[in-house]
């Protein structure tokens, strides 16, 4: 493994982060805020470390898969480390562990926060928080792939390491085209939502921040009360619409916009995804109305928003679901586990794996009836290999095992069971809010420091996919 090549590629990631740090510093200078110098200094450090490898390392046309894996995993960890610098330098509520938590939560688009007073932090830092979502949403390496002057093989290797096998099913293009599609859809959705939110009465600053957060399926808001702080049904509707879009495979969104045969209307996975969200909204809203918590329309308004926010893994809030009936909690926990579709900006288990799991169960039932039959599973009309099917099942088991272990650790630290369980599934699913002490309008500040650290590992596992981390560890073992 060529360390110098890895350092150079991580340099690209740092330079990309530096652009957003400088933008955040400019905002802070504009508002004469105390965060201006911490942001500027962090930006300069990022630039220095980013430029440094370019002095020594010459261009390389090829990258091995193991190098690609280290670049992607290392890139995420370095981005999270650099991302915490402005927080820790600014101070306030940001202790070392809080800064790390906020940075990892931002880049992995989890959206869980440790901040009690979000409105109390400078606008520059608020913009940086949202930027970490936006950079992490499409993957820290994806923007780099767009500007990478290297050969197609490098791009292909890095894209393979960044994207899961399953998400490539709806991308029948070359690596360069896939990157272009991702960026076009990503930027297009962000710009459109910003315009619509501004027209709906949000300030341009809030509109940009919330669009960054929505399209990345993050969940950081500039308000202490999240979207509830705006108390506007129009804003909520716009955000709901874009949360759903951001949870759908970007290749299918691109196909729909360009009138391709592979579009959201023809995809059975999208239909199933939307149908389950619909059922969830009906069940939650009905229970809220029957329990007399809200009026009929408010039950639909708050129920729909919360279901969409969790099923898309965005995690915004318009109401404190902690005080809702237990039945709604079960449904919302299901959506926290399910997550959104592969090929979107969401992390976690992903709906496609659950879809594939049920298809696999159906296949096994058929095989029990007809042991000699040849049954193939198809997703969007394409056959799924048995290897991918097996990998998906193993992934689900590992996923459940991981959040079980995290729950165990948190309960060892005297966190109550419901809080520990929901904090574990919400962080590994990169969703954001949980229940109990970490509910939708609350935060993670009350958790013990070690618990916060464990949850950040969960977030990284959820975003990087467990297999990438295992593969990375295997590389080390093979090398040893």
């Amino acid at each position, binding site marked *: 493994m060529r*360390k*110098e090549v890895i*350092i150079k590629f991580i340099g690209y990631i740092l330079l990309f982060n530096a652009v957003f740090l400088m933008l955040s510093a400019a905002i802070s200078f504009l508002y004469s805020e*105390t965060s201006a*110098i*911490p942001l500027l*200094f962090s930006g*300069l*450090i990022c630039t*220095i*470390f980013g*430029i*440094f*490898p370019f*002095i*020594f*390392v*010459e*261009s390389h046309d090829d990258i091995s898969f193991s190098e690609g894996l280290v670049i992607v995993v290392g890139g995420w960890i370095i981005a999270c480390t650099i991302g915490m*610098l402005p927080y*820790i*330098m*600014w*101070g*306030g509520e940001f202790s070392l562990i809080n800064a790390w938590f906020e940075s990892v939560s931002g880049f992995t688009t989890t959206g869980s926060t440790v901040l009690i007073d979000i409105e109390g932090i400078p606008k520059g830092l608020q913009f940086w928080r949202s930027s970490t979502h936006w950079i992490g949403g499409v993957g820290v390496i994806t923007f780099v792939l767009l500007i990478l002057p290297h050969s197609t093989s490098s791009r292909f290797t890095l894209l393979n390491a960044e994207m899961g096998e399953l998400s490539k099913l709806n991308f029948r293009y070359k690596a360069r085209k896939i990157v272009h599609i991702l960026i076009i859809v990503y930027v297009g959705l962000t710009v459109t939502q910003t315009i619509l939110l501004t027209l709906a009465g949000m300030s341009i600053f809030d509109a940009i921040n919330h669009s960054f957060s929505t399209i990345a399926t993050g969940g950081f808001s500039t308000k202490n009360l999240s979207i509830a702080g705006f108390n506007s049904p129009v804003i909520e509707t716009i955000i709901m619409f874009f949360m759903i879009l951001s949870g759908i495979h970007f290749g299918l969104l691109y196909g729909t916009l360009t009138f391709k045969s592979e579009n959201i209307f023809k995809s059975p996975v999208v239909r199933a995804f939307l149908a389950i969200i619909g059922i969830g909204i009906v069940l939650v809203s009905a229970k809220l109305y029957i329990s007399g918590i809200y009026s009929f329309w408010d039950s639909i308004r708050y129920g729909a928003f919360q279901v969409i926010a969790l099923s898309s893994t965005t995690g915004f809030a318009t109401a404190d679901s902690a005080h809702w009936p237990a039945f709604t909690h079960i449904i919302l926990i299901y959506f926290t586990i399910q997550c959104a579709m592969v090929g979107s900006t969401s992390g976690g288990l992903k709906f496609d794996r659950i879809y594939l799991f049920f298809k696999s169960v159906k296949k096994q039932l058929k095989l029990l009836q007809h042991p000699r039959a040849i049954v193939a599973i198809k997703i969007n009309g394409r056959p799924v290999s048995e290897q991918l099917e097996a990998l998906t099942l193993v992934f689900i088991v590992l996923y459940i095992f991981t959040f079980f272990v995290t729950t165990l650790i948190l309960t060892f630290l005297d966190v109550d069971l419901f809080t520990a369980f929901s904090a574990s599934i919400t962080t590994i699913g990169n969703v954001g809010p949980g229940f109990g002490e970490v509910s939708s309008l609350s935060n993670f500040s009350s958790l013990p420091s070690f618990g916060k650290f464990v949850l950040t590992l969960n977030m990284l596992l959820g975003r990087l996919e467990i297999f990438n981390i295992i593969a990375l560890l295997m590389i080390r073992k093979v090398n040893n």
Partner: protein
Amino acid sequence: MIKSLKIKILAGFMLLSTLLVVAGTVSVIEFLKLSRSVNALIEDNYKTIEATKTMLEALERNDSGILMYLLGEKEEGRKIIRSSEVDFARALKTAKNNITETNEKEHVDEIENRYNLLQSKLLLTLNEQHNIKAINWYHDEVYQSFIAVKHSINDLMGLNQNSMYNEATILKDKSHRAIMPGIVAIVGSLIFSMILSFFISKYYILPLSSLSDAIRTFHPHEKQLRSNLKSEDEIKKIENEVNNLITRLVKLQEPKN
């Protein structure tokens, strides 16, 4: 792409220096801000708090002076009243010239107005020839005004004390912001030095070893060194020069026709 090894290493150290200079500058700026805040704390609030203390003391002495006057110690009483008036006026002037907080001017004006009212009532007391009448007048009129002035002074003191407390809280954050660039620069420099030493080892030490090995294992029947150097830097130039030397030596050894 920089080809010269000398410039590469120099550029590496330049970047490291930039990191340290920037960290130092940021720390200095933050410490200057901190020092300015401490000065402001002393100038803005502490001065006024001291002035209010002087005013309260002068007011108490003024009161004692009147009582002494009314009890027959007229000369001593007058002396105390006069000196307390001078002290009060001086302290009030300090407070007037040091208005830094919101609503502070209103508080100072209120003290001045109430004090003037007290003074006018005192004048009437001192001019009253009948002692019993004067004592009654003091109890009914002067004492209320005296309490009112004290209230106003205490309000001004409270305003400045609150502001001082808030400023002290901000100072804690400012000192944090002054220290952090230094810590980040130390950690950053350590990481930077490690990466730089890796690059120096990779692009300077290893090629030199490779060249040295190639020279050591050079066999007379070979016409070129086998070092596998791919760079175009100074070490490659040495290799080229050694190869030229070998060619020249081979030519010298060849029998002349």
